[in-house]
């Protein structure tokens, strides 16, 4: 048993990132070093997964030290099923990105790698900190590497996109900090367990809820706070987009389930209808917008927002479910749907961005109208692209079906209209995903590059791994469900107890 495994998971990548920042000589050593560190972190997280006890309700692998006594701030780490799964998602994605980056031809390679390593560690920090301020610090610090990745290695309009991204999310973060400080002023603690036990008045809860919800809603992003995402994606380099879609958006969703719903459930309950409406708008309206996008990355960005709408819908219908059926199982099913959607979308969106990025590397364009008939020139890529597009429209047998199914059936129990609007995604997502496929992959070739540009072995390996994960998650979801059942039951019971 490795003690302090969480600290290792957080600080190994961050410190190695910092070292890498100052080392810029041999490219080969750089590559190997980067992949090795990422692999080490992945292996460590798998070790965590194996040693995690599924049926224990309390947080595990706890590390608790006093940090700043006068302000009640602790260095307090620990994981439950939810965080474990998200950490695994995180380490897998960063490992795949580190391999994908080997193919890149870029300036300041060491700093590029360093930014990703640091982001890796910080995200693990976000998912494992159990002290609100510690969480806030990781949450906030995560902005810096992402800001750099988009701002330095991004496309032509990167400055606008990165500043928009920064200001948007920073605005949310300020609200989050204020909420945490207020909570501390009441209960003199930032400890998550005390937060769960705390009781606030309705008005307090409403205000806290609004402040925290806006902070996380921007990160997810929920409609109407979503406009930073398409710009950020279009300008970000491929690996940046992958991390942004697969990991960063999930930080917002994680915030909801860890710091909002169980801490201020009454506030959430009294305002849930607004967030349900916003989620439904995200699903239907943002999905509609995605249909006619001409930039592939923008299209996928909008589809991400639409899919994240399911996550928030699953979060906020639980109160109406509780009112209707008073059965804790219904809450768990809905929350499971949301979490599954988070994990599934992480892999699907990452795969799609990798495909688009590789097309861009070859054809130097992301415009759908410029491309056609890629199947003739890069068949391996195209079949994978088709597969991921199908996964994106929630085909059974792929991971995305599971979450959407659970949320649609739960939302019907809450209200007919919710189910009706959310199930429209079956048509809308098929429309944007497969129309994209029709225009880009099928047909006659438009730009003939006249050389062998299909995926090389490294890329084949990456695509194959991702496809395999998506299929396994689709045909045997119970494996993942077992990990989160106990934790979700605990959270649901905390929520119900406080209502």
């Amino acid at each position: 048993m490795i003690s302090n495994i969480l600290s290792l998971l957080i600080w190994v990548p961050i410190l190695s990132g910092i070292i890498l920042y100052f080392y810029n000589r041999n490219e080969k050593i750089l590559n190997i070093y980067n992949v090795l560190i990422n692999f080490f972190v992945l292996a460590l997280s798998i070790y965590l997964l194996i040693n995690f006890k599924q049926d224990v309700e309390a947080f595990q692998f706890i590390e608790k030290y006093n940090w700043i006594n006068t302000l009640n701030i602790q260095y307090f780490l620990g994981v439950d099923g939810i965080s474990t799964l998200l950490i695994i998602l995180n380490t897998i994605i960063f490992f795949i990105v580190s391999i994908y980056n080997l193919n890149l031809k870029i300036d300041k390679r060491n700093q590029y790698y360093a930014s990703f390593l640091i982001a890796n560690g910080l995200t693990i920090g976000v998912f494992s900190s159990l002290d609100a301020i510690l969480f806030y610090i990781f949450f906030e610090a995560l902005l810096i590497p992402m800001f750099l990745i988009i701002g330095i290695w991004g496309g032509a309009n990167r400055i606008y996109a990165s500043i928009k991204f920064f200001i948007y999310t920073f605005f949310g973060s300020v609200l989050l900090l204020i909420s945490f400080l207020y909570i501390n002023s009441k209960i003199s603690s930032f400890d998550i367990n005390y937060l769960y036990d705390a009781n606030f008045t309705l008005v307090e809860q409403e205000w806290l809820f609004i402040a925290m919800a806006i902070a996380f809603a921007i990160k997810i992003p929920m409609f109407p706070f979503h406009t930073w995402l398409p710009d950020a994606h279009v300008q970000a380099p491929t690996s940046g987009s992958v991390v942004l879609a697969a990991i960063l958006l999930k930080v917002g969703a994680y915030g909801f389930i860890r710091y909002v719903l169980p801490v201020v459930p009454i506030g959430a309950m009294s305002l849930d209808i607004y967030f349900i409406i916003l989620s439904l708008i995200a699903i239907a309206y943002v999905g509609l917008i995605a249909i006619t996008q001409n930039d592939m990355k923008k299209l996928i960005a909008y589809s991400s927002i639409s899919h994240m709408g399911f996550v928030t819908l699953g979060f906020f219908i639980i109160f109406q479910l509780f009112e209707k059926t008073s059965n804790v199982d219904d809450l768990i099913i809905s929350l499971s749907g949301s979490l599954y959607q988070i994990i599934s979308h992480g892999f699907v969106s990452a795969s799609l961005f990798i495909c688009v990025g590789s097309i861009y590397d070859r054809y130097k364009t992301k415009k759908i109208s410029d491309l056609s008939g890629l199947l003739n020139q890069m068949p391996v890529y195209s079949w994978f692209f088709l597969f991921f597009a199908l996964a994106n429209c929630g085909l059974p047998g792929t991971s995305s079906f599971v979450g959407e199914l659970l949320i649609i059936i739960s939302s019907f129990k809450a209200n007919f209209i919710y189910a009706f609007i959310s199930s429209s995604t079956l048509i809308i997502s098929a429309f944007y995903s497969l129309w994209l496929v029709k225009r880009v992959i099928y047909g006659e070739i438009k730009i003939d590059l006249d050389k062998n540009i299909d995926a090389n072995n490294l890329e084949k390996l990456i695509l194959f791994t991702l496809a395999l994960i998506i299929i396994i998650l689709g045909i045997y979801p119970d494996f993942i469900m077992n990990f989160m059942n106990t934790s979700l039951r605990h959270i649901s019971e905390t929520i119900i107890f406080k209502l």
Partner: protein
Amino acid sequence: MELLLLFIPLLLLTSSLIVGLSSNNLGKISAGILSSTLVFVALIFSSIILFNIYKHEDQILYENFYNWISISSLEIGIGYLIDKFSAVMLFVVLLISFVVHVYSISYMSEEKDFKRFFSYIALFTFSMILLVMSNNLIQLFIGWEGVGLVSYLLIGFFYKKESAIKANLKAFLINRIGDMFFILGIAMIYALFDSFDYRTIFININKVDFENLDSYFGLSYLDLSCLFLFIGAMAKSAQIPLHVWLPDSMEGPTPISALIHAATMVTAGIFMVGRLSPLFELTDFTNSFILIIGSSTALFMGLIAIYENDIKRVIAYSTISQLGYMVAALGISAYTVSFFHLFTHAFFKALLFLCAGSIIMSLHHNQDITKMGGLRSKLPVTYICFLIGTLSIIGFPLTSGFFSKDLILEVMLDNNSTISFVSYNMLLIGALVTVIYSLRLLFIVFHGDFRGGKLSSIKEQSMIILLPLILLAIFSLFSGYLIKTFVDMPIYFYGLKDIHYEGMLPFISHGILSPASIALITGFFAAKILYKDERKFKMLNSAITIKLKSFIQTKYKFDELFIYSSNKTKKISSLLASKFDIGLIDGFIVNGLPKKINKLSQILKSLSSGYLYHYAFLFVFSIVVIFGIILARIL
């Protein structure tokens, strides 16, 4: 038994994966033989199961292979529920699939993507089996969507052809419209029973207090949920108005049409309603709705077939029309009768399509019937098989179609209600229409003179093509004699449906003397005079008939409706994107706010200019204003 049932889907999945992912080392022919063998083994297994089910009366096999999801009270498994109903269906699916596999070895041999094709059809069969075997709604839905997916891939098989990739997108989107309602229906059923499992649902059906359930839009809860499920079936089984994808699906290779139209995909909707019959049984509105949709599809889609000139499209419209018959039978709760027609139809429709494929091959990929004619002498085997298929579809006495179609008409007539009487008449006219378009096709293609150039170069295809035809022809002739099996087939947890049937001989004599025979004879002479003797009548040139003809040839504008709505969606999408997302949120608020702040700071900046007289002026001005306010208050 359990092992056999596990192997059936696994064999097909293996076949699909091996053939699809194998390198070039595996040659075309060996790949074809390999996957045909695997399907054949699965077919053997399914016949063992069928045999066992019929040997042990009332045996029902039910088990889960594994738990797909279990979250506290919610448990969804992947498993099977095999009773007579699903065992027969399983056998039919595998039989047709096997025949199509063998046929395709020769038909597709020239194709570069031969192995991709075989991988697809194996996957297609796999999905259908998943659907048929299922013991719960979710597995059904997984197979349901899987079938939709593979049909998408198959219709777009020739991905360079613009028409093919349009048709496959259209097929998928329309199926997705159905799927949206289907999943809503599933959600409604789940909310009622807290389970997706057929057994649990059917056992608990009597415990539900239907009186106190919510009603929506004036429909009872169960009516609406079954309506939603049926809308799903309408898309899959190509009922008006969601049928538009089926004629376009002819863009795929011909063997696929046989597979899609005969045993897989389009029959899924019929199968689903039959499977969930205990639920449908309790609905009023939905049953009438099903009846109306079915009978109008049967009549109006048949009419279109009379004016089509593409051999595959004629058969495609005839499929839609025949599906209408099955759906209509579902509407009067005659589930097994409907299933019987599905059973016989599977054979003669597969036969017709494969014959069409043989003709198309012989004519070097010509599908236009105006360029055919007189092929009888050159393609004798195909001719005889096609003739058998045609006789079956028009319900010629003692062929399989005669039994199943007559049974539908009879139960329709026995069902004493106004709607079913109207439907009966529509189906009767539909039978006449069937005779006309089927015989028209036969006469134009095989009789008269050849209109496509030289006849001498045309010759019959190889035995690999002809053997499947002969096999199917035998089934088309004799499968009708199993009528008793279907009349006596129990519907799961619901028991026997009371169908008026007195035995083979009375049925035959009664059928020959029924109005359907008049339709048959009238249709025969009409088709003979019009298309064989090619006589023209003044009556056909009158204004009304010409108008009627051009009305039918518009195909009732359903295609235009679909194109219109998809264009409208795209327009709304780009409008929302430019006006709302970029215009309002981004332009006005996100980027607008910083601009406003900028402007404000400009104003503030100009105030602090550094000139003393500016400050002096402001100072004096402020004092005047303040004193003014104070004065105003005092006064």
